[in-house]
């Protein structure tokens, strides 16, 4: 019991501590692949430190919502992080049904993020908020058709148990899991506002989704938002990596090793994807997301009928 809690706390610290590094790695890979030297890997940390010390400016028409929303964002993402398995370690929060709580607690963060954007009363933020609400709607089913479907097949309802039920012994199950992981990757790309859904480095307000929602934030508010978005990226990365643990062999060292190599490999994949794919048109994004959903459904049907 005691060791479980300790491991859970260490995993949260790992997630909170390393999430900017993950983002930095992605950016570095992307820079190298496009033939630039790029910012240092630790640049996200420097950025955060810089933003932290800036003056906080609130829009004139904003209310308590934009003051409280960054806090809610960070807290909910920390709670979500506490449900994820790092390596073979049992997460701090793990009970049957926590997959639902995981999906909905991210919904809480999104709810307040959208409200905070609309709180500014500017059309830019409104546009971002409307897009976030629309695309989130299409992203929701992907989560259920991938991780949810494994849950329904295996009968486990806790994220930790769901991932533990994965055993790549059977070929059809193996294919099923791999295609699920592709769907989850597409989900991660959209939820964490990466290309081709959103460009984190864009400079035009009209084309942004996530960035435009926090356009009018600065200082500690921006720090919290930025840090939360790093955590969110890492959370989805862990959802992706966790597919590939050989859960039948319980060795902590192996778990950590796979965690590290998996993260590194994922940064590479993200870097490659962002280099070779350009940002798609706004009106094509629902199609992109529905494509991921369709893969999920087809995959599930094929698995069920070949079982």
């Amino acid at each position, binding site marked *: 019991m005691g060791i479980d809690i300790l491991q859970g706390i260490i995993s949260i610290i790992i997630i909170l501590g390393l999430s900017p590094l993950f983002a930095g790695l992605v950016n570095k890979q992307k820079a190298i692949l496009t033939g630039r030297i790029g910012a240092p890997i630790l640049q996200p940390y420097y950025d955060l430190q810089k933003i*932290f010390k*800036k*003056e*906080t*400016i*609130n*829009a*004139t*028409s904003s*209310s*308590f*919502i934009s003051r409280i929303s960054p*806090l809610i964002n960070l*807290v*909910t993402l920390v*709670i979500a992080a506490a449900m994820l398995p790092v390596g073979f370690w049992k997460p701090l*929060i793990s009970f*049957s*049904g926590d997959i*639902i*709580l995981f999906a*909905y607690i991210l*919904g*809480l963060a*999104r*709810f307040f993020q*959208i409200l905070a954007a*609309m*709180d*500014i*009363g*500017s*059309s*830019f*933020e*409104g546009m971002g*908020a*409307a897009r976030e*609400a*629309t695309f*989130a*709607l299409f992203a*929701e*089913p992907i*989560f*259920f*058709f991938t991780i*949810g*479907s494994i849950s*329904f097949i295996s*009968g486990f*309802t806790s994220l930790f148990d769901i991932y533990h039920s994965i055993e790549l012994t059977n070929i059809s199950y193996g294919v099923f899991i791999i295609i699920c992981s592709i769907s989850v990757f597409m989900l991660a790309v959209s939820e964490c506002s990466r290309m081709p859904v959103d460009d984190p480095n864009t400079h035009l*307000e009209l084309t942004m989704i996530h960035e435009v929602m926090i356009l*009018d934030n600065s*200082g*500690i508010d921006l720090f*919290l938002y930025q840090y939360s978005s790093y955590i969110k990226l890492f959370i989805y990365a862990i959802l992706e990596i966790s597919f590939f643990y050989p859960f039948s062999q319980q060795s902590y060292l192996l778990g950590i090793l796979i965690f590290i190599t998996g993260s590194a490999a994922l940064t590479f994949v993200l870097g490659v994807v962002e280099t070779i794919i350009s940002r798609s048109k706004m009106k094509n994004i*629902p199609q992109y997301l529905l494509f991921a959903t369709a893969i999920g459904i087809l995959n*599930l049907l094929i698995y*069920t009928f070949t079982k």
Partner: protein
Amino acid sequence: MSILIDLCNNLLVASFVIQLLAIIFVFNKNNRTAMYSANIVLLVGLTLGLASTLSSALFSSAEISTESIFLGYIRLDALSLYFLFIVQLVAIPTTIYNFSYLQHYVEKKRPIKSFVVFYIILIISTQLIVITNHAIFFLVSWEVMSLSSYLGMILEREKEEVQRGSFYYFAASHVLIFILYIMFFFLHNQTGSWLFSDYHLSFSTGIVVPTIFILSIIGFGIKAGFMPFHFWLPQAHPVAPTVLSAFLSGVLIKMGIYGILRTFLFIKPVPEWCGWLVLIISIISAILGVWYALAQHDIKRLLAYHSVENIGIIGIGIGIGFIGSANNLPAIQVLGFGGALLHTLNHAIFKSLLFIGSGVVYQNLGTRNIELMGGLVHRAKYIALLFLIGSVAISGIPPFNGFISEFIIYMGFFNTADELKNYYPILMLLFAVGLAFVGGLAVACFTKVNSIMFLGSERKEVKHFKTSIYDNISLGILAALCVVIGFYPQPFVGVVNKVISSSFILGNSSSALIDIDWLYFTIIFTSIAFGIFILALIKIRIEKKYGRRTSDAWGCGYNNLNPRMQYTASSFADELNTIPQSVLVYHKKFEVSETAFPLPSKFESHSKDFVDSNIAMPLFNWLKSMVAKLKYLQQTDIRYYIAFILIIISIYSLIAFLWV
């Protein structure tokens, strides 16, 4: 123990008597005194009633008695007590809101006495519906409820929309009462009794169970507002006085749910197709209900469509419960019915909260169109906060009560998949995705409502915005309930579990509902609240250190931003509305001038109800034209009528002659 039961019953009788007495106080000459005294007396009666319900066996550890009292007319079994609790719980805040709402009418010197009388009768008859044990008494109470709510609804009867909307309600109520007549006559025919406690058709063969089931789904389904029968809701709710629409949406449509569950108790266990039928109707109601809601600009109509959505969610729980009942698996039943019952309570709470909130805004602004609102958070911070709590709760997002009941329904899906194996996991997964999709749509819808109504800056200048203490109290009570059920669900889950295990399940019950790790929710939600609090303190310190100021929003270099440039509700929801255009009947019209010097352009969008405009209205119009053809029988000459009477009598006699 018997003393306790006696005390409860006496308290209950006293509460009814006091509520009835309230009517006398209405006949005071002074409008203001009449309104206040009648409402206070009603409030006393309701509080007493709530106290008696809370001290009953359902809320203590005692066994629930299933004996009927008062010559068999009244029976307080677990289901009745639970719904009685809901009615009383919601009636108290709405009655408190009455003080503030009717005050506006008193100031304008408008007659309100009849409204107060009908309101009191409505509340009493609604309570009688849930506790009665006699079919005729049930039908009479039902009719009194429908009529009194209709008569209350036409408070502003000079307006055309009120006449139209309330007639929808009136017509729907009448269609459904006929179906209920048929159903109860059929039940009487089968059992030879009018008492609910004698209706045990559990294992009767043939068409008995399916007939009763279908009749109850249609009859009670119209009241509840399941999808093909929902069309009266968005017409009636916006035009009703806010007090009434809060009660209508919070409690009255739940009578449909009560009816369906009560009928289930007569015929349990139901065959499995019943469960699937309810599930499919419900998921359609849930998805389309919230999607229609997204397209609305009238806040009360929007909330009415959300009732359709939530009734859908409740129906999903009931459907799961039916499947569990068909397979005789207690765990599934406990989770399915448990989710449905808890969501019934939750929806009653947050929907009346939202309706009262919208009523406060309506009284101050004089409009229900959200496109003309905005920035109200700066006028009424408290109302905005409470409305926000209701919005988060209705979207099913933690940490408030909506999430708890949706979570139980999800656990019902998981459990069904796990216990029945075979093709069930896939089907349950599809429903789970549907529910998640509904959640996503609800988030989109309520972020829209909240941000357009309360946030940003004022789209139309607000001259004065005043809220009374009564608004704050009634909203405060409801919001507090949302928070309490969200943060500490155990006691409520325990009550729901008791309702189900005492009457819904044949044989041994299951502890699946209580076994969910509710403690985790309490801990997690408390730590979220605590975390936000601590972070807020830190944030304030940091802001002190590095400075904080306010400045105009970024306008991309343009400095004359005005409130009209804000994102509107229709632009926020535009993309989502255009997707299901065919079902939504959503029209957009652009008028853009293409001259060199642009003239003012125009844009309008309309959303119609598919069922209303493509099915219900054409059907009724067709019926009307058909019936109109019979007009030629209606001659002025009395001899024709005598001839008709003779023809009819001879047909009857012929039938009787051949029959015997």
